[in-house]
């Protein structure tokens, strides 16, 4: 997978590039719209990550120009603007997405994966998920560990499903709220954490190896380690 990262703030460009490379992507970078347009029109990138505040052109205009010249790669918009522009929302319908700064790298990667999945051919949805000795039946919405069924509420199952789908990858509290409860805000209290503690007390019961781990400052990860 090859990505184009357009960002004029070099400090941000550097750490985003590093994170993307570590996640296994090939990354080309541009610091201004002129160079970005030239790179984008090569047509070799699977997705573009574009900051809106570029020195020589508004990021949205850059996207529009690339689209007009035949570029079809999905775009992930980075924006420092809090109130998300109408036009950005309009683009969202066209298969694009946006993130406002400051963002968690985990969320950037998750949205990028989502964009790339959307643009590629849909994969056959699996009916079961397995992580180590944890099994999820997505059709019957039941979970078991070491072949013993777990008594989960519907929300707890959704939460566990979300963690399993992202097994090995860190998810933030905001991402959990968004995907499990369909709400987009940053909670100031431990409201999400309490759900995780409850789930953990059922999944990682005594005698089992812990699967749900807390990553301080970022969120949670489900992995067998």
């Amino acid at each position, binding site marked *: 997978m090859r990505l184009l990262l357009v960002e004029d703030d070099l400090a941000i460009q550097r750490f985003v590039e590093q994170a993307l490379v570590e996640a296994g992507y090939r990354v080309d970078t541009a610091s201004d719209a002129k160079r970005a347009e030239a790179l984008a029109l090569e047509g070799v990138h699977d997705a573009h990550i574009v900051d809106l505040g570029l020195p020589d052109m508004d990021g949205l205009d850059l996207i529009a120009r690339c689209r007009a010249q035949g570029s079809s790669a999905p775009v992930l918009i980075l924006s420092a603007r809090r109130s998300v522009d109408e036009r950005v929302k309009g683009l969202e319908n066209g298969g694009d997405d946006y993130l406002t700064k*400051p963002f968690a790298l985990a969320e950037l990667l998750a949205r990028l994966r989502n964009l790339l999945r959307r643009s590629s051919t849909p994969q056959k949805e699996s009916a079961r998920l397995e992580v180590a000795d944890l099994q999820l039946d997505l059709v019957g919405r039941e979970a078991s560990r070491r072949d013993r069924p777990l008594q989960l509420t519907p*929300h707890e199952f959704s939460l566990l499903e979300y963690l399993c789908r992202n097994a090995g990858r860190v998810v933030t509290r905001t991402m959990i709220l968004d995907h499990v409860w369909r709400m*987009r*805000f940053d909670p*100031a*209290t431990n409201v999400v954490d309490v759900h995780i503690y409850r789930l953990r007390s059922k999944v990682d019961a005594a005698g089992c190896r812990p699967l749900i781990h807390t990553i301080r400052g970022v969120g949670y990860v489900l992995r067998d380690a």
Partner: protein
Amino acid sequence: MPKTLRTTAAWRIAFWTTLAFSLGTFAAFFIFYVFVAQEIRARSDAWLTGEAQVLAQVAEDTPRDSLYDHVVEEVAELAMHEVPDETSSGGERMNAVFFLSVNPAADSDTLFVGPGPKDKFWSAIRQARWVAGVPQSIKVAGWRQTAASFRVVAPAHQGPTAIYLGLSERGDKHILHKLTRRFLSVWAGTVLFGLLISYLSARRTLQRVERITETVARIGSEELDERLPEPANSDEVSRLARTFNHMLGRIQASVNQLRTVTDSVAHDLKSPVTSIRGTLEGALSAANGEHWRDAVGQAIEGLDRVSALLNTTLDVAEAQAGALHLDRAPVDLGEVVTQLVSLYQPAMAERHHEVRTHLGSHVVVEADLALLNRTLSNLLENELLHLPEGCQIDIRLRSHEGDAELVVEDNGPGFPPEIANRALERFVKGERSPGNGLGLAFVDAVVQAHRGTVKISSRPLGGATVTLLLPISALQPA
């Protein structure tokens, strides 16, 4: 005239008003003058025509013997004593009258009664064309130094002689001159007096404006509590003063709020920044890798608090400025409450709170779901942050007089009395509150953007009540 006077508005107002007044009155006088002049002439002509008729009659009837001259002269003399409005000024007769009877065939057959030499009148009369019975003005040159103007009529008359009766216009002119002179003196006085009065009254009014200007100029950002004196009457200048005072009040409120916001943001940023810095510094001097991991995690959490504070501050500012973009769609409020309660239930249970929902009826509002979720979660976060353990929280939803009424009520300590009236303002929070004082301000701003209202109160037996009223959407089934 000093330049400073000409540049004042008072002078300009007075000048133009007076100019308009004087031109108007002058035009009125002109019309009056023409009317009077015509009236006087009409009266003179009526007299002249009448007398001339009598004289012509006498001249016709009298046989042309030696007595003829005598009789006609006698009648002419009589007529002259009947001149209307005969006045004398300085012993001089104002209304001189002459009578002339001329026989063009015989020069000796001429009769003249009147002042001065006959020839001068005769030569003036000969230059004019005469229509019987129509008076006209002629100039008699050289009579009494200057040319005098006479009104003369030649009556229709049979006989060899032509008859002319003339009346000096001097008296008429004298009356008209006197009228003009008197008018001009009164007019000039009135104009000057009017100029003075209008200048003084305009200056008096504009001096009040000047005082407002001086006061406002003096009020910088430091003396914003100063106000203009407001006179009791309600003329334009008083209204100006009152409007300025209102504006100053609003500016003062904004400036104060801005100061509070800046102070609060600065204060609220300092503690997380201090702790982030301390944590990272401690991690640097420690050798243990696990300690580093922990410190970085703590630093990120601190930074998240900082960015949350900044974001919420901006959101509230944007919402209060009315710049919030609403993505309205029909929202089932009961559904929203149920979802949020399911999200918050475990955290509430952890603090031994009991949450009870009373969803009376199916209530749909036209609202932005994401903002509504944040708004209601703010209320529940408040309960988590502020209540001591083991409280009871009741959430009631009903439709009431065209509004959706959502009440969140607890049996905790209630709002601290010192902030009870201002709890919806930005950065207003209780002394021991762990929050940032933005939660309820955001709730208020979002609800207002939906044209709703927020009411807060402390219950008499303890506990806080927050009531949201949102207009019910038109889509609500009857």
